[in-house]
């Protein structure tokens, strides 16, 4: 068996990123779209930690903390918007939210 190198982590991160992107692009439920965004941000964090470990430099972990901060802010505001939207439109399907469509 090969020892685990940075390349393994990069491949895993890329796979998770693609799974998240598929979720964002294909799902209709807005809650699950927000969950897919969390998957994408976690893929980014895996990448940062892998390079942080490989270079023995702690700055990557500091960046990961900032990414987590952004994820928290995004989830809070996104879910607040979702609640406001559900109160007005009674739907959580992304393609039925078409107020701005011509």
């Amino acid at each position: 068996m090969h020892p685990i190198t940075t390349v393994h982590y990069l491949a895993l991160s890329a796979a998770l990123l693609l799974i998240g992107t598929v979720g964002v692009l294909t799902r209709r439920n807005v809650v699950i779209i927000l969950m897919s965004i969390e998957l994408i941000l976690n893929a980014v964090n895996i990448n940062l930690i892998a390079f942080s470990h490989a270079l023995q430099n702690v700055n990557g972990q500091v960046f990961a903390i900032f990414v987590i901060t952004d994820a928290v802010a995004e989830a809070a505001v996104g879910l607040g918007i979702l609640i406001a939207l559900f109160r007005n439109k009674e739907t959580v399907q992304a393609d039925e939210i078409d107020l701005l469509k011509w």
Partner: protein
Amino acid sequence: MLTDTILFYIFALLVLGGGVLTITRHSAMHAAISLIVSLLGVAGLYLMQQAEFLFAVQIILYVGGIMLLFLFVIMLVNLDEAAKQRQFNRQWLIALVAVAAVGAQVGYFIYRGQGSFHFAAPLVAGTPAGLGNTEQIADSLFGEYLLPFEVASVLLLVAVVGSVVMAKKRI
């Protein structure tokens, strides 16, 4: 070294399996549970790479905080109706093609760039300077990255105010 390999594949299975289940389940509740499994797998990967502080942050903040927020919204918003309807939108075919193209590119670059990644030193036993992981992060965060840290706190304040304004019925 063998234990590391086995653990990596177990955690990778948790991460990817949880991710796939998250984007395929009909019920938002099941998707949330799968997402928790995936996030715990990511936490395990952090621990394997000697990022102990982020391991704790991942479990406390993601699994404890963000997922709680998601579960509350699933409770507040009535999703039973949505679970019975069509789950995927009409652009799913073109979306899959686009994602496959991006995946091919990323895979090609990782494959070709593999030689450059050989600086991946096999696990160093213990930290050399005697400083723990949390202390190192604190030194960096409150020294070099003090200004971004303060900006992040302002961002969180804005997010708190914004989400309260959004979720409130009448201001």
